[in-house]
């Protein structure tokens, strides 16, 4: 890098000889503008080459996998790939066409082939996403058709199970015969298609996702507000104390920050349970009777308390670094002009903390919206967030397309917030400790 052409400043320094002729050139006679542009291009390339390995790494191990996963939210060929003939019939006919002779023949052939290839479970699972109870219909029918099936197929299949005549089932199969579908997104907002293909709300007792999204955002907002209420006085104290003492107190903020998330969650489980320390102290103080111990965990209260504690440092640190830069003489000037301490705080001090407040609040909110571990452990039924639902679909119901659709919506929300954060705060202003 000792090469002079690399460094724009060095390039300018070598132009002294060119000035006399009136046209700026470098020492070896090239036009300066071109030499400068070239050296800048080269410097840009060098800088980019340093970043390239990491960028490639992140793209391959992070961005592309998430993209692939999101693809499942609108692409599922579980039915169409394994049931080709009946899918072709669906493609030929119009929506709402009742199944005819040809359709029943295609269905019977596909069911037989799929049962032979042992993919009937995949097909059943795909239909089961939209119409619960269908998986067993497919697998049991598959077992029977493998033993042989005689035409007329419509009667034969309906003898195996009369559900095969259900128009809702045929409508669902028609939906599933096209691998690209918006149905998982519809389901993620508690909507589904009925037999005629119209979009309508699902039954009231099955409406969970909109409520969960609402709860996730509401609880995140509550937690953000709580971290603000608790974090503001602390940040202010740390920012106004002399450096030596504030550094000491800062350890009390940084220690939780460095402590394992699971450790902090565990300690809240231990403290808040009915036979735990907090209830013991309340009973001992006589605030509550021994028989009415509070249920503070395995519900929303538990989620709120534990998450507020865990996310509090993310509010304190940005607030603190902004408050450190506030010049105390403004408040003094306000006081000397007759403002009360409250007015001076409200009109002079607080507005200057807003950049830190914005940074902290957005960070806490973004992190809270995607929280999984803590709600899973301390949330009980009423403290679960949308992340827990994604995990459930991934590991328990194995409805991966549904998990992907929910993840896509959550990710979109987080990315919008992240974009806003970058606009307002700038990612390069993110600080840790």
């Amino acid at each position, binding site marked *: 890098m000792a090469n002079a052409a690399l460094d724009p400043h060095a390039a300018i320094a070598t132009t002294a000889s060119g000035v006399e002729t009136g046209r700026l050139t470098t020492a070896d006679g090239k036009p300066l503008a071109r030499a400068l542009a070239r050296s800048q291009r080269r410097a840009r390339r060098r800088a980019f080459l340093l970043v390239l390995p990491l960028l490639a790494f992140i793209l391959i191990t*992070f961005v592309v996998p998430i993209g692939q996963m999101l693809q499942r939210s609108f692409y599922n060929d579980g039915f169409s790939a394994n049931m080709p003939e009946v899918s072709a019939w669906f493609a030929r006919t119009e929506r709402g066409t009742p199944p005819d002779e040809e359709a029943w023949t295609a269905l019977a052939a596909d069911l037989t082939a799929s049962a032979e290839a042992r993919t009937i479970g995949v097909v059943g699972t795909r239909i089961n996403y939209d119409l619960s109870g269908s998986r067993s219909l497919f697998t049991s029918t598959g077992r029977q058709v493998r033993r042989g099936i005689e035409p007329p197929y419509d009667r034969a299949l309906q003898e195996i199970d009369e559900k095969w005549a259900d128009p809702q089932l045929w409508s669902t199969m028609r939906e599933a015969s096209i691998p690209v579908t918006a149905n998982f997104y519809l389901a993620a907002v508690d909507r589904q298609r009925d037999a005629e293909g119209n979009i309508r709300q699902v039954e009231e007792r099955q409406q969970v996702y909109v409520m969960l999204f609402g709860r996730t955002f509401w609880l995140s907002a509550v937690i953000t507000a709580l971290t603000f209420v608790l974090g503001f006085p602390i940040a202010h104290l740390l920012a106004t104390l002399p450096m030596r003492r504030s550094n000491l107190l800062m350890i009390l903020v940084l*220690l939780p920050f460095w402590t394992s998330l699971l450790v902090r969650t565990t300690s809240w489980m231990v403290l808040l349970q009915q036979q735990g320390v907090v209830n013991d102290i309340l009973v001992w103080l006589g605030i509550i009777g021994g028989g009415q111990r509070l249920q503070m965990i395995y519900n929303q209260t538990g989620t709120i308390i534990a998450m507020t504690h865990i996310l509090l440092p993310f509010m304190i640190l940005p607030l603190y670094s902004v408050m450190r830069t506030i010049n105390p003489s403004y408040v003094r000037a306000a006081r000397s002009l007759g403002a009360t301490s409250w007015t001076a705080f409200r009109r002079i001090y607080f507005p200057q903390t807003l950049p830190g407040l914005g940074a902290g609040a957005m960070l806490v909110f973004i992190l809270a919206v995607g929280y999984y571990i803590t709600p899973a*452990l301390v949330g009980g039924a009423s403290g679960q967030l949308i992340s827990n639902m994604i995990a459930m679909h991934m590991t328990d119901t194995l409805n991966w397309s549904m998990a992907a659709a929910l993840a896509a919506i959550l990710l979109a929300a987080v990315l919008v917030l992240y974009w806003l954060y970058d606009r307002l705060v700038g990612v390069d202003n993110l600080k840790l400790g």
Partner: protein
Amino acid sequence: MAVPTYASPLERAWHYAYLAICAAIFFFLIAPIIVIIPLSFNVEPYFTFTDKMLSLDADGYSLRWYRSLLTFGMQNPDATGAAFWSDAWANAKWVNAAKNSIIIGVFSTIVATGLGTLAALGLSRPEMPFRRAIMAILISPMIVPLIITATGMFFFYSNPCELLTMFGLSPECGRLAGTYLGVILAHATLGIPFVIITVTATLVGFDQSLNRAAASLGANPRTTFFRVTMPLILPGVISGALFAFVTSFDEVVAVLFIAGPDQQTIPRQMWNGIREQISPAILAVATLLVVFSILLLTTVELLRRRSERIRGVTPR
């Protein structure tokens, strides 16, 4: 901060109330972490202080939960001497989990710190193109909800070559899920934002003319980097590496999704323990982890002070 001399009695009262509020919030921050330490020495299988513990009776305390940590999974916990320890080293579940956590943590830290430091050097050059957008992408593993990252990795790591089918190829290659390499790569991805943030923060105060001075004195780029740049940014690099290590050491979601039974780490073992039947042995692990984080925090603080001193940056 003292009360100004012109403060009214009401303001004085408020000031002391304010200090009391701050003390309460500090208590809220730190008490949950401290309280589990004595509880982990409880002789009874309870999660609260017994009367004996409160009266500081030595009989109320014991090391039984620490012992149960060590013996959990051992074939012959009643053996003595060398046989006991070699059994513990080979079979104890928590010992194995600790080994796995350290192996995965160290290697993922090396990957994250190496790539992250290089990238941070590039990102802090003024001529870096698309700086903002690239920075936003590199920080995103910290922002994207872990469950989404883990889900994406779950599919990708079960068949990493599926990607190539886009180009019309259909190669077969092994699974990354259930291997050490897979978990290490996943944790490196999650640790990278922390390295980027800390190292770029160190480079903000870095005087580029030092590099030019070295070059003008005849040092080649490599000498310049290792003799001038590196010693100055080293504290930032080390604290970035510690952040990356802690991220890996504490990570459970990605491990749950992509690790196999062989890659049982401490957090995963804790997760299982908490979900099934939480016992005070978990508190013993938690205590050890708290001690560990105190050590790390101390290291990071010392590094930060050293960095400020050698760069001549006065504390704000």
